[in-house]
């Protein structure tokens, strides 16, 4: 081959590569631009989440949505009745249209629900039970006899679409926006649906840009390349100064918890926390006010439990949580036989009181510098701490949490489900489907409460059981040591206002107003 030919071939290859990459169109004028995290939409049948989670682009809608107490409120279901033993009758909202003009009726609900709700195992809808009562009403049944099935339908993955369009390219829902284009890992663009039953959204078009790196999302906001950042991780807050003129930090009521999950059933050497006195001593040694001042731009508050009092109308009475009382913590450890040595650290039968703390779920960066602060606080009562930092969620679970390979597990998480039993059952019941959480289950007493809640038929009764289970888990068994209650955050550029909500999935960014 002649050299000139070789060079020509190289040029042709380069231009071919350049042509293969579609040039991103400029966002049309009047388009609201939202910086989202990485694109994790799934288009596979049974796991379909395109446009729903996350971000939720409000293309599809679920039968019910959470209200501001996280109770299910009517949405595509105008009303529903639990007739007992998991049997339901629901009345569909009249006047609802899919984006192609198809009416939302009992028949379209049934075909859609079979594909999009019955495939979500956690909802427990029996697909064979779906029956048309009349054009606007349906009957269905829970596989487990649950009275909380509609509450579980508030999950974004229960959004309904026309089944024939679920192949993944352009889902057709009933929401205020319809999908215009989707480029995986790049962009999702939606436009206002004029036939929406719930009135017109303020923004005619919304463009979601998938920006995987948190700092890139923040820089894009500062450079006015996006108007809103919907996916805010705690690391981003460290880069924002108070009264930053380029960024407005919006926060919800506290919803997430930062907490230490105790290993109640660990095999040696991770069996120290089987002793309730040691767990209680740790809980009493923590200065939560100090943590709240340092962490999350000072926006978090000391926590008393893992569920906030406003959620489900739980109230603020229980659990009581823990104040800081190092004198009592010291007494508890003395009672447990852990005595201080010459270096101030405790030991028993020649073995030092040294705990392994794994930091953290979802990653170590999200809780920095909490582990170091906690270790310092524990050292004041003579407890040594080995901090293991894990950035990868999968390693956190598979190497440590699933196998109980630590004494304490630091987590920043929260309940986003309208089913009041969801978090406590999955995190503290011995029959939890999440294997790592079996190490935190206190046992029969809590199981009985949570089972009673799951089998309850009246919501107030269910919530009462959850309230008591929460108290037992935190106050009595100290299966978890609450640290902070943390709000959800959204970042906007100055002049952009949105209706904040605790579950970011349900914030309708299309209702944002943009000032001058």
């Amino acid at each position, binding site marked *: 081959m002649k050299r000139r030919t070789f060079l020509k071939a190289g040029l042709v290859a380069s231009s071919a590569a350049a042509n293969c*990459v579609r040039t991103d169109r400029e966002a049309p004028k009047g388009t609201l631009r939202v910086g989202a995290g990485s694109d*994790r939409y*799934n288009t596979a049948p049974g796991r379909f989440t395109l446009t729903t989670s996350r971000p939720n682009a409000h293309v599809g809608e679920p039968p019910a949505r959470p209200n501001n107490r996280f109770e299910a409120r009517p949405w595509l279901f105008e009303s529903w009745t639990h007739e007992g033993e998991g049997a339901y009758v629901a009345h569909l909202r009249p006047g609802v249209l899919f984006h192609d003009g198809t009416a939302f009726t009992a028949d379209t609900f049934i075909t859609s629900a079979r594909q999009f709700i019955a495939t979500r195992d956690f909802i427990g809808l029996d697909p064979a039970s779906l029956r048309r009562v009349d054009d606007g009403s349906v009957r269905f049944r829970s596989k487990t006899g649950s009275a909380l099935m509609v509450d579980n339908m508030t999950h974004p993955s229960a959004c309904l679409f026309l089944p024939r369009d679920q192949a993944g390219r352009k889902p057709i829902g009933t929401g205020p926006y319809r999908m215009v284009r989707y480029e995986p890992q790049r962009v999702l663009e939606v436009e206002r649906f004029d036939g929406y039953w719930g009135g017109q959204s303020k923004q005619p078009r919304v463009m979601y840009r998938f920006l*995987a790196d948190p700092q*890139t999302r923040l820089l894009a906001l500062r450079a006015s390349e996006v108007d809103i950042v919907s996916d805010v991780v705690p690391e981003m807050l460290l880069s924002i100064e108070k009264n930053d003129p380029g960024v407005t930090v919006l926060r919800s009521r506290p919803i997430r918890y930062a907490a230490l999950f105790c290993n109640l059933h660990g095999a040696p050497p991770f069996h120290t926390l089987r002793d309730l006195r040691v767990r209680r001593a740790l809980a009493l040694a923590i200065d939560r006010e100090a943590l709240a001042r340092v962490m999350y731009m000072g926006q978090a508050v000391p926590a008393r439990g893992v569920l906030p009092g406003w959620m489900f109308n739980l109230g603020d009475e229980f659990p009581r949580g823990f104040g800081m009382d190092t004198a009592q913590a010291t007494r508890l450890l003395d009672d447990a036989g852990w005595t201080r040595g010459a270096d101030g650290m405790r030991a028993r039968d020649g073995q030092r009181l040294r705990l392994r703390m794994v930091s953290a779920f979802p990653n170590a960066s999200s809780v920095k510098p909490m582990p170091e602060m906690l270790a310092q606080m524990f050292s004041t009562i003579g407890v040594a701490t080995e901090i293991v930092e894990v950035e990868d969620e999968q390693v956190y*679970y598979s190497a440590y949490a699933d196998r109980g390979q630590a004494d304490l597990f630091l987590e920043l998480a929260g309940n986003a489900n309208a089913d009041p039993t969801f978090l406590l059952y999955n995190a503290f019941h011995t029959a939890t489907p999440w294997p790592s959480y079996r190490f935190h289950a206190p046992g029969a007493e809590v199981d009985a409460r949570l089972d009673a809640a799951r089998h309850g038929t009246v919501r107030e009764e269910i919530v009462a059981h959850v309230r008591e289970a929460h108290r037992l888990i935190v106050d009595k068994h100290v299966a978890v040591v609450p640290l902070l209650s943390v709000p959800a955050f959204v970042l906007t550029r100055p002049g952009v206002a949105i209706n904040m909500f605790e579950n970011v999935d349900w914030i309708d960014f299309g209702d944002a107003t943009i000032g001058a």
Partner: protein
Amino acid sequence: MRGRLGRRLLWTLTTIALMSMVAFLLVAIAPGDPVVAELRFMGVPATPNTVEALRREFDLDAPLPVRYARWIVRLSRLDLGESIASGRPVAAELARALPWTLQLAFVSLVMIVALSLSTGLAAALHPYGRLTTFLRGLTIMAISIPVYWLALAAVGLGAVVLGWSTVVSDASLGGLLLPAFILSLAPGLAIGRVVRQRVIDERLEDHVRLAVALGRSPAQILIQDVGVVIGPSLVTMWATTFGYLLGGAVVVERIFDRPGLGNLALHAIAARDYPVLQAYLLCAGVAFVLVNAAADLLSAWLDPRLRRSRVDD
């Protein structure tokens, strides 16, 4: 030459076969479960029924050797499977990401060649001058500074402070320059150091001194006497760097939000998306091996000594 080609081909095929095994095993033995990861991401409890059904669907319930054999059989039919995290065919995921990476890799390669030649020759012409000292310092800095920080600083300065570029890079040449520059800086300057040293060494060789005595111009000497000798080894270095770039510049693609192979791999690692990861590792490895094989052949074609031995073959 035919013998050289045959040996090279055999070696390449063996390497690719071994790589397929390594790619499969590395992913399979890594901690984490893709099915549980996906369910966790969806925010739904991983009930045994769901987990079992998904494991069966993605062929994760069979013993490792069986899975590997099935993977190879599917691979022979060019079926790379389906992504667990996105539900799309893996081949489509790779095809979507590849042009972004190719584009960035080509432009970066051009910059690397330009940077290495310009800085290397400039330093060679003034081996003990201020420029050389400056370039040495710059090279050390470029190599020492983490690319993540450099990229963020460049974006912050270029897009937020000066407004010369955008944070979110698009497919236009303008959107490509900054990421390509960040990517090419360290390797370009490092290879420039090699160029400098090779030119200085070559200037002392007899054939160059003879060319000087014959009164040939410095440009002629540089191209015809020095360039011909050092060219093949530089081609190998550029090709090796290009091979790495084809694997996807993970950090730069992430910071500049380019949905190329590096970004795809990063997503796949976080989600433990086995089919995507295995296909990615295999493709990146194959690209590296092929580019190196091409570089070897190109070097042989460029080097007059090897050309002569080619005749002997």
